Every structure is written in C-alpha cells, then in structure tokens.
C-alpha cells in the first residue's frame, strides 16, 4: 500500500503528460477544458498522496526506500529507479505538489485563450514529474534524472513563446548554464561511486565517516557546482533573470518556488558529506552570502516587475545557501518552504498585475493600481510584508533564524552580508509596492480602461498563498518555541549529525537571539522606511541620488556587466575556437591528405605502368576489375578529379593482386 501510493505520486502527472502530449501531437482531439482538468487534477491527486505519505511518516521518521524497478546495471554498478521517503522528502513533496497545485489552478485563468494551452500544461506536468523524481529519488542517479528533467522543462517553458527570439535565447542560455552545473554534479556522482561503490543515499550516508577529508571536499565542491547552477548562485546566476521570458506561472512555480530550490535541497540531503568538509561548507556559506547581497543590490534598480522578483529570488536562495553554510540545515529548508509561499504569491500577484495591464511589465508605466485591482494589491502587500521581514509573518521567522544562527555560531561577516541584503530586500520590495500600486497612475492611456481584476480562478490560489505566507512561519515555532517548533523536530532525524552541536550553542545564546531578532526587524523597518521616504515623501529623491551616484548606479543597472564579461570570456572565444578548428580541418588535415594522395598518385602511375607491362597479360581478373572500375567511373561523369580515379583503379588492382597473391602463397605453403 505504502509502496504503491509513493509510486503513484509521480505517476499521476506522468499520465497527464502522456495524455496531453499525445493530444498535442495528434492535433487536439479534446478541448482545453479537459486538458487543464487532467493537469491540475493529477497534481491534486499527487498532493493528496503526499499528505497521506506525510501522515505515515509522522509515525515512522526513519527513511524508507521504495524500489519501482531496476533501471540499469553493468558489472557492480546497479541503478534502481527508487524513492526514499523520510521527513525531508515529505516536506519537499508537500511544497512541490501543494504550491504546484495552486499554480496549476491559477494557470487555468492566466493562460486562458492561449494557443498553446494544452502544450503548456503538458510541460507543467512534465515539470511536476521531474521535480518529484528529484525530491523523491533514493540515489544520485534518480536525483540527476529529476535534476536534468526540471532543467528541460524550464527550457521548454522559458521558450514557451518560441516565436520570440529573446525567449528562445533565454531558454538556450538557461539550459546551457544549467548544464555546466550538471557536469559538476555528474563528476560528483562518479566520485561518490568511486569512493563508495554504490549510489544509494542510505548506504552512503551510513558510511560517510569512512571518507577522507580530501575526497569529501572534492565531492562537496562538485555537488556545489551543480547546486550553484540550478539555484542560480554566483557565478552561474545569469540565466535566472532571463528566464522571466516564460509565462508568469512558470516563473512562480519553477523559477521561484520549486526548481531553483533544488540546489538547497541537494546540499541539505548531502549534509553528511558537507559536515566532513568544513572548508566546502564555508564556501557554500560565502557563495550564499555574497549572492544574497549581490542580487539584492541589482534588485534595487530594476524596472521590470518580474526581474525585480527574479533578482529577489536569487538573493533569497543566497540566504538558504548561507544557512547551509553555517550548518543551519533546518533553517535553510524552513526558509525554502516560507519562500515558496511568499515568492509564489508575489510572482502570481505580479502576474495578476501584468494580466490586468494587458501584458505591461515595466513598473514605470504602472502606479496607483491599488484601488483598481484591490484584491491583487492586498495579496501583494502581504507577500511584500512577508519577504521584507514584517514581524510574525512567515519570512520573518525563517530569515531571522538564519541570521541568528549565523551570528550565534560566530559567522559575523556572513551575518553582516545577510543583514545588509535583508535591508536591501525590504527596500526594493517596498519600492516595488509603492511604484506599482501607489502614487499617480502612469499607465498608458489605451491600457488604462482595460484594467480589470483577475478572475476568481486566479484570485483563490492567491488567497491561499497569502494565508500561508502569513501563518506558514508558525510551523517553525509551534509548539516548542524558537528552533524547537514542529518543523525542527520533524526534520531532526534527517540532519541529526549536525543538530547536536547547534542545540548547545543555541541554549547559551538565548538572550542574544532575541536581540538579533530585534536588530533584523529594525533593519527591515529601516529598509521599508527608506523606500517610503524615497517613493512617497520625497519622490524627487531617487533621481537626485541617481545623478549623484552615477557610477554605482550604472554598475548595478547593468548587473555588474557579468553577462557581457561571460560573452567576452567564454561565448565568443568558444565560437572562435570552433571556427579556427574548422579552418584547421580544411587547411591542415585535408592538405596533408592531398599531399599523401599526390605521392600515391605518382606511385600509382608507376604501378599502372608495371601493371600494364608485367602483370596484365598474366591475370585476367585484374584486367576485369580494371575494366569494371573504369566503367563505373565513366558513369560518374568525372572530369575534375581524374587523378583520383587513377588511384582508385590502381588501388583496386593492388588489392585484388594482393588477395590472389597471398591466397596462392597460403595455398602453396
């Protein structure tokens, strides 16, 4: 029963993919109505199964493996398609299927009337299948299938509007940048196999202690390369902002709530290895901290509503990496969950704004929308408050826990990076809110009178997400208080080895934790107030500041020119190498071939002479071959390459001669 239901979780959406995919290939045999019901219905079933599995796991937190079938094997390498059910998997399952379901429902309204409606849902369900494999896999290869699978769906969905060149380019870029990470991940898999002789998590983590620190470090770093690619951390973050070319529900589901958090999941899943490599863990923390701040600064000046949110996602993922880096694995997953709620909410309500404004995404052409789309405004406000760290909302709990943990464990620099990023977050999110919803309307005239609130099918998922964004943080504090909430107790078996040390330090710093919470709360308020000052009290200030700090402004407006630098450093040279190889092929190797051929040509002339005068009379076979080849060649109307023909004939003659000669020799001896 348990095995069956676990297996069914990814099977439901898979069936929907097959049905909707075939429907597209066979020319739309059924209506959009059926297509979307299949799509969200299958995800709902997966969600219900996940809830059931959670119920089962509450009683038995120890990991259970469910083998679907033996996938492939060669000698001592056996790879099963199998699932691991433990508390971490359960949490991920609920987030993926729960938020996924809400976004599917929302998409029914958002994508209404699109030509590729069925195709869209087929891709979305394929994404669900891959993401479920990713979080459920019991070994690295299944994780990798999901890993590349979600990359593929991301590619397909970013390029959903395939006739837009920018979308097609963004899709390719996303896949290729992800592939760089994937290559690192593959190497990690090989390293694991070389060290353990197996790829199953449970066996590996049980024996992780036998790993020497150098091996642990290299595995951890290779895994990190994969994680950095998928979770858009420095230096592989460039694909995520471009990924906003996809439809907004895609941005919410894939590029905010689920896929991009896969890197965090992977690091937490492999914490047993990271714990053995403190240096690698420190690198994880530094990557996270730097990315959190780096992306937050870019977010300060973006003018595309989705791009602000994209950089915000990169920044928040940085927080999760930071959490992993300081050993706060539970806090990382906690933030992953709350972030899934409020970031999905923000993206979807941004989508609702875009929907209302007939596709407008530039916040400079928005403003004063709060009264026109009040429900959207309401939920966006909740989302902003949650991410900015308004007390008692979900983001406040999880972010404070990360920063508190960093500080208590003596990572002051990482704490400072995170705190600064938190200030920026509060600022750019408040700025987004003010510029979009308040002040004078700057909406283009022809768009103005089309503004409408979104249909209920879009609003209801927003309300659910808003509710979760408000109360979702409580799972982290109820019933045991800070760092002793249900969430921590539930996940404790998964991160046991790391939790032991953390608990003690936490006890000592109880007062400190409260002080830190007050500090970060103040930081959030300061960020909000700065935005309030700039965009409400003194609206002329931003331009003045912009002029005064021209250099810094240009730098962050151009996203630190990272894209341009990569183009110059990798893309252009790569193409140049290709072109020069191409030249080498024709000018180098082919020239050698021609030279050899000319030498052969000469000797062929010689041997033809010998052939004519010495052997021809003797062997009729040869003559016949000669004759045949000549006839063939005449039919080919060869003119320009007659000397090739000469060699051909000579070659055949030599061959036939050799065969006859050696057979004769062999027969004689």
């Amino acid at each position, binding site marked *: 029963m348990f095995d069956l239901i676990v297996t069914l979780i990814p099977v439901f959406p898979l069936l929907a993919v097959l049905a909707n995919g075939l429907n*597209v*290939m066979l020319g739309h045999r059924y209506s959009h109505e059926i297509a979307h019901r299949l799509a969200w219905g299958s995800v709902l079933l997966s969600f219900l199964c996940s809830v059931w599995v959670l119920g089962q796991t509450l009683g038995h937190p120890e990991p259970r493996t469910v083998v679907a079938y*033996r*996938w*492939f094997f*060669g*000698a*001592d*390498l056996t790879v099963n398609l199998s699932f691991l059910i433990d508390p971490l998997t359960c949490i991920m399952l609920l987030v993926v299927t729960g938020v996924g379901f809400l976004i599917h429902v929302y998409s029914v309204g958002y994508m209404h009337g699109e030509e590729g409606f069925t195709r869209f849902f087929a891709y979305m369900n394929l994404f669900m299948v891959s993401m479920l494999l990713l979080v459920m896999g019991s070994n690295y*290869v299944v994780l990798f*299938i999901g*890993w*590349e*699978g979600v990359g*593929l769906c991301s*590619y397909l969905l970013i*390029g959903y509007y*395939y*006739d837009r*060149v920018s*979308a*097609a*380019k963004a*899709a*390719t870029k996303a896949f*290729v940048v992800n*592939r*760089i990470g*994937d*290559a690192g991940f*593959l*190497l990690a898999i*090989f*390293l694991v196999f*070389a060290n353990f002789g197996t790829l199953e998590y449970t066996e590996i983590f049980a024996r992780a202690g036998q790993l020497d620190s150098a091996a642990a470090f290299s595995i951890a770093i290779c895994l990190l390369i994969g994680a950095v690619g998928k979770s858009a951390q420095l230096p592989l973050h460039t694909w995520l902002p471009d990924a906003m070319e996809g439809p907004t529900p895609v941005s919410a589901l894939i590029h905010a709530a689920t896929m991009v958090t896969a890197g965090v999941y992977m690091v937490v899943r492999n914490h047993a290895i990271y714990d053995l490599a403190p240096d690698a863990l420190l690198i994880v923390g530094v990557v996270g901290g730097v990315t959190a701040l780096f992306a937050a600064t870019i977010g300060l000046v973006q003018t595309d509503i989705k791009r602000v949110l994209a950089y915000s996602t990169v920044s928040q993922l940085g927080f999760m990496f930071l959490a992993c880096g300081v050993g706060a694995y539970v806090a990382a997953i906690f933030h992953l969950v709350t972030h899934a709620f409020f970031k999905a909410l923000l993206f979807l309500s941004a989508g609702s704004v875009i929907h209302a404004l007939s596709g407008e995404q530039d916040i400079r052409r928005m403003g004063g929308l709060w009264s026109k789309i009040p429900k959207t405004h309401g939920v966006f406000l909740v989302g902003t408050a949650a991410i900015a760290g308004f007390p008692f909302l979900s983001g406040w709990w999880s972010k404070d826990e990360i920063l508190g943990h960093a500080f208590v464990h003596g990572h002051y620099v990482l704490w400072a990076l995170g705190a600064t990023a938190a200030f920026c977050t509060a600022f750019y999110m408040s700025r987004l809110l003010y510029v979009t919803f308040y002040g004078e309307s700057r909406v283009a005239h022809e768009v103005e009178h089309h503004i409408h609130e979104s249909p209920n099918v879009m609003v209801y998922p927003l309300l659910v997400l808003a509710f979760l964004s408000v109360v979702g943080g409580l799972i982290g504090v109820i019933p045991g208080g800070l760092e002793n909430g249900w969430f921590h107790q539930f996940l404790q078996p998964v991160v046991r080895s790391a939790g032991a040390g953390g608990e003690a330090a936490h006890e000592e710093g109880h007062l400190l934790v409260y002080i830190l919470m007050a500090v970060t709360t103040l930081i959030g308020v300061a960020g909000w107030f700065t935005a309030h000052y700039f965009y409400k009290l003194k609206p002329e200030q931003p331009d003045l500041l912009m002029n005064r700090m021209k250099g810094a402004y240009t730098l962050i407006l151009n996203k630190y020119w990272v894209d341009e630098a990569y183009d110059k450093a990798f893309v252009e040279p*790569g*193409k140049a190498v*290709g*072109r020069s*190889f*191409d030249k080498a*092929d*024709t000018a180098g*190797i*082919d020239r050698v*071939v021609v030279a050899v*051929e000319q030498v052969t040509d000469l000797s062929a002339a010689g041997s033809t002479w010998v052939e004519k005068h010495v052997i021809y009379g003797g062997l009729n076979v040869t003559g016949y071959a000669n004759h045949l080849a000549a006839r063939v060649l005449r*039919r*080919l109307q060869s003119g320009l*390459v007659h000397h090739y*023909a000469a*060699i*051909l004939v000579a*070659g055949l003659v030599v*061959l036939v001669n*050799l*065969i006859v000669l050696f057979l004769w020799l*062999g*027969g004689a*001896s």
Partner: protein
Amino acid sequence: MQDVILNTTALPHLLTLLIALPLVGVAMMAFVKDEAAVKHVAFWTAGIEFVLSLPLYLWFDPARYEMQFGEVVPWITKPPISYAVGIDGISLWLVLLTTLLTPICVVCSWTAIKSRVREFMIALLVMETAMVGVFCALNFVLFYVFWEAMLIPMYLLIGVWGGVDRIYAAIKFFLYTLAGSLLLLIAIIVLYFQGGQTFDILALTRAQYSEPLQAWLFWAFFVAFAVKVPMFPFHTWLPDAHVQAPTAGSVILASVLLKMGAYGFLRFSLPMLPDASFRFTPVVLALSVIAILYGAYMALAQSDLKKLIAYSSVSHMGFVTLGIFVINTQGIEGALLQMLNHGVTTGGLFLCVGLIYERTHSRQIADNGGLSKPMPRYAACLVIFALSSLGLPGTNSFVGEFLVLVGSFIYSKTIAALATLGIILAAVYLLWMVQRIAFGVPTEKTAKLADLNWCEMATLVPLIILIFWIGVFPNPFLAPMHASVAHIFDAMGRVGVLP
C-alpha cells in the same frame, strides 16, 4: 567449431537468410517494370528482413558468451576458408539496428530519390547484405569480403545520388576507407600465418601473439578502424561524405557504417591483441577525448545543418572509442549501448535534415528558421532527437554516456572530466541549432511549409519509441551484452578493472 552454438531454432539458416534476403529482393527487381513497384519490392524486402531479424533477440540466450545462431560450412579447403556466421551480444544490436534502419531508409527515399530509383534501391539492399554480413562473419575472409563489398554501394550512393560536390566526396570517402582496408588486409594475412594458418576469427582470438607483432597488428587495425569510426585525425572524409550523400546514405553511413570501426576494435583489437591494447590505451584515449572536444567545437562553428550533425557524430563516436579503450565493463557496455544509441539518434537527426531539405532545398541553418509555427510535429521530433543526442536522462544516450563516463572515471579522473566538458558543449551546439531552426519567427519561405505527413512520421516514430524505450528500460538492451563483454576480458586474460 569452438565457441559457436549452431542454430537449432525453428528458423534454420536464419543468419544466412538475413544475409541473402536483400539479394533476393535485388533479383526480384529485375522482373518488375515500373519504379513504383521497385520501391515496393525494396520496402517489403527490407520489412520482411526486419521482422525475420526479431527472433534474433527473442531467441538470443543472454547467459551465453558463445556465438549463437551459428552456421559453419566449408567453403575453400586450401587455404582453409569456411563460410562461418554467428552473433553474440556484441553484434546482436548492430544487426538489428541495420535491419531496422534499412526499411526506414527505403521509405525516406520514396519521394526524395527521383532518378535511377531501381539502381538506388539495389545499392541500398546490397548495402544491407554487406552490413549484416560484416556483423555476422566469423571468418576473416568472409568478413573482409563483406567489409569491402560495403564500400561500393556506399560509394555509388554518394557519387551518383549525392549533391553538387558528390564526386569529390565519394572519392575522398573511398580513398580513406580503402587505405584503411589495405592495412586491415595485410593484418589479416599476417594473422593467418602467425595464428596457425586459419582465417577462423575465433581461433585467431584464442591464439597468442608476441608483443612486437601485436604492436604492428594493433596499428594496422587501428588505422583501418579509426578511419571508419572516424577518429581524429582521420575524420575529414565524414563531413564531406555526409553533406553530399542523399538522406538514406547519410543515415546508413552515420548509423551503421561508423559502427563498423568500433565493432572492429571490440571484435579484433581488444581480444586478439590484449598486450598492445593495454599498452596503447593512452594514445587512443587521448585521440578519443580530442575527438569529443574537437568535434563539438567544430559542430559549434557550422552553418550547414548536415555538417553540424556530422561533426557531432565525430564527438559522439569519441565517447564510444573512449568507452572501449578504458577497458572495463562499464566503459565497454556503455560504448556498445552508445553505438546503438548513436545509430538511432543520429539516424533520426539526419532524417530530420532530409525532411527539411526536401521542402526548402537548403541545408543552411539560416534558411530554415522558425519551423515550430508551420511544422509543429517536425519541431517536436527535432527537439526529441536533439535532447537524446545531448544525453538527457530518460532518453537512450544518457544511459550509454553515463556508463562510458563511469568507466572512464574509474580509469582516469582527468579524462572523465574532459569528456564531461563534451556533454556541456553538446548542449550548446544542439540547443543552439534547435533555437535557430525550430524557434523564432518563420521566414517568408518557411512560413508556408507543410508539416510532416503520416508517411514521414512513420520513419521517425520507431526511432523516437526506441529513444524512450532504451532511456527508460535499458536493461533488455544491456542484458545480452554482459556475457559477451565478460568474455572479452576472459580473452584478454584479465577481468575488467574495477575500483
């Protein structure tokens, strides 16, 4: 004959039947008048051939390493040459790949070939006989006859039905392979004298050769097979041949002919010359890695669709030779699976190129933009083949490449890391191609193109099914290999090197 299990199945002379059936089809063509009938004869011959080849898998005993479905008939007594055929886990899939692709090639040439249809179909069927023969032959003379016999129809396919520069390409192809064949012939003759005056491949495999002799033979074999694969730097005939060849020619060339080189390495180089194989492994691996990266960079620079895929073949075949010469179980089984995968996937890609060439008469990427709008089915197929080619999990190539990379990682971390770069580059050139062909705004010319009809879909769908079948359930495809691959290591005198 030792190591051969004679055919006792319900179909006597099954392999002989498979080798001869295409020639029967050729003979029948002499009796039909019009060209439409010729096409039907060719299709039904190839189709029946395929159906008849299926029992090879169904009745194949994966537990045995010996040659199965064997037939041995004395042919010439002095020197002793017998007609001996049989297949093991190494040749099984290559025979089936050949019989699957030939009917597909007949169908894809249905409207594409307009002149000399009869001769074209004859060449195709003669080709099939020779290809099946090469994979089944257990006697070196027989092998060599088929090996050489293959050249002529291929030469004609390129030279007669090819593009503008077909003569140049055909002769370049012929000369390269002929040079290789000559060395192969010399090696065979030397083996005959040193291995106990026999042409029996299995007996020659059991014989011992001195180390210096092994070295000489190794390089003779190497050139012959490396040209066929083709390995860097013997690859320059390939892009020309592909670009000029008609679609069916390209498909056969990429899917089956290139496999002959890799097959040669596995059948002859490794088991017959183990010392030399171990000794020269680093050289071959270096060339393989160069081929992977060089081919990938070359593919990146191409503006001609066929050339792009031709160079991607160089890169992908680099994985095959890499897997073979790391000389461990994962590597070789991965290489074998990858041979099958490359046949399916690259065959599909060449079919896709042919389909678009028939419509726009251009293979230039720049002339064929935005095809998703007018041809959604075509775009979907192209994307599937591209994803398979770049080794996406769930498709066939992932399993093959994964095994090859695991094998090479066990051999050397550096080599595996370099080869892994190849899979990044594969994503770059393939998705860039997809982006330029399938996505974007259609041009005035491409906007009006008709999507694939059922007949055209029928050539692609079997390959797509195989892509996912191998990708999701690879075990049925790997199972027959295990015993035969293990036997290679027995023949080499040591067991696969494992961690």
